[in-house]
């Protein structure tokens, strides 16, 4: 009876493992198909701008929140929707004003103003102000701040408590010596 139960549970576990492997393979394949069909937009800050002798934008680089650098080339149809510090939006295409595009991206680089780039095979189709919450949730960063804040507070209070005990002991000893 026990052998039968063991065999049944083993075969159940095997079936479960096979199902999981199959699900994993299917999901990975689907992800690859999906990413091949559509490159997700890149959100980040401008870290490099390259221009030709006439000052026209040729390439630019964006660092995303994980620190990965993405380099994009430009073509005549690249669209822009970028704001200056005052919030005035400049909407144009590469062929209309290529040097203004370079100037705007340099301004974004200096201000660390984030942008969103849609692209295909490294060619930028649109470069716009980041308008939606595209940043990953980044809960790890929030947790780090929370943990550091409270760790430092607790360590300091513990340090004060320890110092207090030492002083109490010292005061009692000195008062004993002076016969108070």
């Amino acid at each position: 009876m026990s052998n039968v139960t063991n065999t049944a549970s083993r075969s159940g576990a095997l079936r479960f493992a096979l199902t999981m492997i199959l699900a994993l393979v299917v999901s990975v394949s689907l992800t690859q198909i999906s990413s091949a069909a559509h490159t997700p937009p890149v959100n980040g800050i401008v870290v490099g701008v390259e221009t030709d002798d006439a000052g026209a934008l040729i390439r630019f680089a964006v660092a995303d929140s994980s620190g990965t650098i993405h380099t994009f080339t430009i073509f005549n149809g690249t669209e822009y929707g970028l704001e200056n510090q005052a919030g005035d939006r400049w909407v144009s295409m590469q062929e209309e004003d290529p040097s203004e595009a370079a100037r705007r991206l340099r301004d974004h680089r200096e201000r660390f103003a984030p942008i969103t780039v849609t692209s295909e095979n490294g060619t930028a189709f649109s470069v716009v102000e980041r308008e939606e919450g595209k940043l990953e949730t980044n809960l790890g960063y929030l947790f780090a701040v929370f943990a550091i804040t409270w760790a430092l507070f607790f360590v300091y209070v513990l340090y004060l408590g320890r110092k207090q005990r030492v002083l109490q002991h010292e005061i009692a000893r000195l008062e004993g010596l002076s016969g108070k």
Partner: protein
Amino acid sequence: MNKILDLLDPLLILSATFMGVALYLIFIWVPTETNQGAVQRILYFHVPVAWGSMLGIFVVSGSSFMYLLKKNEKWDRLAVASAEVGLIFGGIMLLSGMIWARPVWAVWWTGEAKLTTALILFFIYVAYLMFRAYFPPGAQRQRLAAIIGVIGAIDTPIIYFAANLWSQAHPPLITGPAADSDSALGSDLGTVLLISTLAFSFVFIFMVQARYKIRKSEDDVVELKRSSSASAMTGVN
């Protein structure tokens, strides 16, 4: 000697209550900001501790000034206590700012005006405490430390106005008299920031009070040692 960690201390109860409410508001109640996502919640820690660090140098400066004026030890104690707690708040301000900057700016640090002046404030605290630790004890140490404390406060308005004066990477001011109305927080976010600032302010006052009591005990020990050695000398004579 009073216990510094008395659980029935009204200030501790007030701090804990406000902090509990603030944490609930920060992590559960307030909506996630659409532009930055979850990391924006770091603001509710960063701004209050930055306020605490600036409050600290103001207290150091004010009490140092009062010490120079009145020569009363209690002002010197208050300055030391405030400097130590201000250093902790300043450290958290720098760390939380760096951690926020990493996902939003993709760098940990940049040499822009507000960050640099905030770092200078941190170094002013370090210099003040190091001076007190290494200079020989006595009235001269207290006088010179008081002068450092008074001068140190000059950095505070520069930090506050830096984002508006130089308009670099740091987000513009969102609180205080110079805040730009366009960049001010909405009512929900503003309420959470206000409660959180109050909570951290109570924590600041609680810590300064605790450190002040310990400083007082340290002075008592010195006084007791002095009187016991004096009575020993009298006994010998």
